């Protein structure tokens, strides 16, 4: 199973390195969304939090960052399955005897790597554009890793459900985003704690994210096979 996962992941990452869709199209899209949030909220709005006065953008930055990541992830997941559907690859891989759980893990790893790269750049962008501080880098790193795992796991399952359909681009977001709402919640709260260093609940929400990641990966490994069955 792990060998199959490795094969899938390497194949997908090679395709990405050759076509540069994530770096060339999805990444700029993400940065654009960050900028658009700046337009929507405006830099002049300020909030008073405890003793200090913060700009609304800085205060909302964790949530805005994660929404941008979710939107970019939808595109990345759509792309990950679009490369397969053109020639019926997934059916061919199943028939070739690859373990479905292995295919799932491979896709997960490939999309997760791409998403982590996106988050690195978008995170830098958020720090720069919204002037946010950074109180606990270790917590932020943990949050980003766990949230990425959870987003990718749930997203891969639902992208597989919608694969090969003409309505894929409208159906998959409708399916994925409600499922990811707890991840958005937990990641936003944990990032808030990591960035501003205010809340005691940062590690609590980080562990909640860990639970999500475990649950979604486990469910994905079990559900992927039945979803891809064609008889």
């Amino acid at each position: 199973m792990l060998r199959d996962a490795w094969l899938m992941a390497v194949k997908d990452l090679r395709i990405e390195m050759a076509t540069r869709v994530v770096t060339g199209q999805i990444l700029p899209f993400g940065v654009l969304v960050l900028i658009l949030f700046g337009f929507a909220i405006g830099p002049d709005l300020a909030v008073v939090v405890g003793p200090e006065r913060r700009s609304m953008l800085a205060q909302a930055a964790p949530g805005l960052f994660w929404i941008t990541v979710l939107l970019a992830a939808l595109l990345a997941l759509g792309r990950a399955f679009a490369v397969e559907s053109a020639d019926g690859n997934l059916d061919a891989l199943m028939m070739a005897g690859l373990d479905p759980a292995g295919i799932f893990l491979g896709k997960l790893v490939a999309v997760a790597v791409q998403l982590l790269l996106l988050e690195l750049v978008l995170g830098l962008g958020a720090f720069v554009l919204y002037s946010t501080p950074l109180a606990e880098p270790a917590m932020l790193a943990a949050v980003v890793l766990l949230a990425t795992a959870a987003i990718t796991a749930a997203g891969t399952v639902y992208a597989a459900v919608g694969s090969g359909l003409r309505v894929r681009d409208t159906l998959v977001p409708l399916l994925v985003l409600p499922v990811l709402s707890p991840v958005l919640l937990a990641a936003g709260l944990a990032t808030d704690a990591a960035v501003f260093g205010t809340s005691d609940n940062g590690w609590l929400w980080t562990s909640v994210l860990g639970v999500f990641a475990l649950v979604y990966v486990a469910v994905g490994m079990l559900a992927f096979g039945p979803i891809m069955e064609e008889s």
Partner: protein
Amino acid sequence: MNATSSKGTRVIGYSALAFTVLALFFGLVVSGPEVNMRESVRLMYVHVPTILGAYACYAVTLVGSIIYLRNRSEFWDLLAASAAEIGTLYLGFGLITGALWGRPTWGTYWEWDPRLTSTAVMFIMYLGYLAIRRMELPRDVRSQRAAVLGVVNIINVIVVHYSVQLWRGLHQGSTFGLDPQIRDMQYFSWFMGTVALGLIAAWLLIHRFRLAWLERQLEDQWLEEALAERRSEAI
């Protein structure tokens, strides 16, 4: 069968009608206003049963999905799909009646309290399930994917429920600040409401299921006729 009604559905239908009239009578006329909520408690006689009905329908969807995944039974597949439709209808009504209740009681149509928020997300999840049911795919592939989703949805509903509970639980205490004291006649009205809406749900479910069954038979018939035509061309 060339119609979806039968003696059984007529019995259920007329009892549903009778209980609805009774529930309206007890809920609007006989029972009195509640201590804190006053007249808006009457919405509870409808709101709570619709939510319970939705949960019951989704339980049917879960069971149907599991059984379909085990033995590919068309009956359970169509039952799961029909139950999801009725359940989503009821959940939608539950959200609307809840909002209508909230306005006079809380002063607002919406509160980010755990139950409301997770119910709203659950509603959208099942809209997604219904969207899958309409996908342009070979019938058994579509049923297979929908069945997997029917099971996975429940896991997701539980995850959403607990995470929202944790979120709002950490930030504030009880949202309600009201202690509903339902007395005898009000409890009875609520019970009437539950029976009435439960019978309506059963009636809707049976009709919807039979409709789906007939549609499937029509599809099969069309296919057989098309095959026969093709074969006769070959001769």
